[in-house]
């Protein structure tokens, strides 16, 4: 039997659909429906379509402050993790001669990530606290008289924890795209008299773009969807978008939580679309 082209096409996308439909599209539809329902205040929901949940989200100054905070963390994390991730990958690809050693070092990069996120986050507390190692060391060396309080339970602490958790998501794709840069191109540029800076600017950076973009998608969507790091590392000093609607769920306000979730989903999709618009990942990867 010979299948026609359309059938083959459908068969090709079946695995993807089999995952996307039950695990993404269906839940989103359920949440979207919940977001236009109403609640009786006791966890019961009834269908009397309303956009009130959305108008509340958009009219509340709280929403904008929460988004400001969360986007701020996403941006800061993105900047630092991209910077660190880029140089780590660069070192591994261009400075480590032996392929085996590079792979070995690359694997070592992942070692800290064998423990849970939570442990990696909590371990910062004894380091950064008022009576923590850093403050004690600085005080013992006479650099400061009183402990630095901004180290823990602050925006600083949140960013440190995020960067620590998420840099690997930058290293892996950047390493991958850099590894595919033909070394002869760099040699040719050198022979033609290009400076190191030019090589970086015209060859390495443009050719690692897809890796940076992929990493950015991971980092941005994880930070936007997280609330736990913010909660613990800021010492409750600030809140996050997801944290706020998790608390709505805690008091059984499902419709308003659902509306906030839909708004967040759309926003994250826009952010990803923006990243994809800046870098055409598909084109870069298939090159």
């Amino acid at each position: 039997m010979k299948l026609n082209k359309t059938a083959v096409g459908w068969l090709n996308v079946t695995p993807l659909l089999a995952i996307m439909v039950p695990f993404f599209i269906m839940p989103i539809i359920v949440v979207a429906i919940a977001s236009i329902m109403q609640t009786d205040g006791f966890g019961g929901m009834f269908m009397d379509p309303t956009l009130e949940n959305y108008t509340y989200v958009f009219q509340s100054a709280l929403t904008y402050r929460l988004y400001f905070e969360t986007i701020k963390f996403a941006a800061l994390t993105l900047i630092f993790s991209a910077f660190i991730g880029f140089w780590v990958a660069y070192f591994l690809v261009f400075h480590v001669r032996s392929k085996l050693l590079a792979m070995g070092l690359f694997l070592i990069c992942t070692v800290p990530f064998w423990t849970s996120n939570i442990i990696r986050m909590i371990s910062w507390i004894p380091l950064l606290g008022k009576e923590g190692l850093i403050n004690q060391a600085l005080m013992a060396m006479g650099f400061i008289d009183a402990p630095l309080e901004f180290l823990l339970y602050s925006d600083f602490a949140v960013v440190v924890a995020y960067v620590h958790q998420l840099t690997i998501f930058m290293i892996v794709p950047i390493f991958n795209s850099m590894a595919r840069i033909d070394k002869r191109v760099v040699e040719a540029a050198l022979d033609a008299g290009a400076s190191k800076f030019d090589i970086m600017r015209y060859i390495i950076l443009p050719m690692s773009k897809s890796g940076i973009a992929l990493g950015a998608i991971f980092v941005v969507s994880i930070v936007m969807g997280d609330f736990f790091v913010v909660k613990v590392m800021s010492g409750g000093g600030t809140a996050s978008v997801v944290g706020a609607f998790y608390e709505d769920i805690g008091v059984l306000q499902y419709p308003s939580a659902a509306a906030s979730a839909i708004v967040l989903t759309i926003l994250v999709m826009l952010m990803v679309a923006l990243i994809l618009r800046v870098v055409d990942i598909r084109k870069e990867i298939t090159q």
Partner: protein
Amino acid sequence: MTKSTKKSNISRRGFLKAGAAAAGAAAGSGAITGFPTIWAQEIKDIELRHVGVSYSVVKAIGDQAAKDLGFKVTMQNLDTSAAINRFITQPNTVDICDLEGWQAKLAAKRGVIQGIEAKRIKEFDNFLPIFTKGELDGAKIANEGISPYAALYLDGKDSTELHDGVSEWLTNVPQVYNADSIGYRPDLVDHPVTEWKDLIDPKYKGKAAILDVPAIGIMDAALCMESAGLIQYGDKGNMTKEEIDKTIDKLIELKRDGHFRATWTTFDQSVQLMAAGEGVIQSMWSPAVAAVRTKEIPCIYAPVNKKDGKEGYRGWCNGMGLMKHLEGKKLDAAYEYMNWYLSGWQGAFVSRYGYYSPVPSTAKTQMTDTEWAYWYEGKPAPEAITDPYGVPMEPAGTKRDGGSFVERVTNISCWNTLMDEAAYMNKRWNDFKVA
């Protein structure tokens, strides 16, 4: 989101030792005799899933129950909000649900629990009247918030409305409760704390911490505001929007002045904050204070006895509810399980944490005289005190903060609750967080 108990501190060895000691105590006292062997054949395939917060649904207790009763008991821990969400949205995945008063009210309203027959609860008549009548020694127990008594009775087995006053049907069987207040470092705070207003005293700027579970954090805050004479409340357990606004605005003002070093959500965080010297005064739970002390760091649980219509502890109580789907042998087993809880072993166990049993008369039979004197009577401990897992806690001669059991519970001024304006309050609480 969470309260988690101090399980992390328990070494396996300590646990085994305690288990052996407990088994010895049980064998010695002869209080637990097991159930008829014919029954044992039929029930051995039964499994009860008891689901709730970690400080109430404790694995060591479930293990002991399974051993004594002969059927399987699985303890599953979730945080408060995840728990109530699971009871309501997936009631069939739970057999025994862990309920606070306000959760009992919600669960009844949603029809996910069935009424418990009071006459099948053997020790029901020995319950402290705090729970069954809303009073103790003739004194009325506070009814701000949702008191265990207010949420105890149902009209009938399948009723979805709470019953005002006493009836034959219960929403839940109370099993553990306590009175929460403030913990402080006596070495860093210059006077004994007996009033909530000290928590917002500018003297402790940058060294104070507050509980970040909106529903109860707001009550702690209200106790502070009321104590400092800043705000007067009609009912701290059910605030009006205006009262919520005033409270949150004041909290925001304090936060902008740098008053709070942090807020905490879990038991461990509160211990950590205090032990590391990040905070010197914070709203806190009794076992958390004890946990700080076991690190040999001085910490006192403030006795905030009621005075002039102010102050008082914030009380809470967790009970066991029966999910609607339970029937037949499994339902019988669930009743046996609940009766086992009230037979003493569990009461003694939670008492060694610093919590209380609603049937102290049976708990007493499983406790040493030393333990009873220290935990319930508020007397100086005749001998050293150890925690439920056998880890030394207090040397002989120590007196429990807050005095006797009666002194503490009669000084409860409000109970954990879910306010009518909970959704509004949550939003305002987040305003405080991002301020």
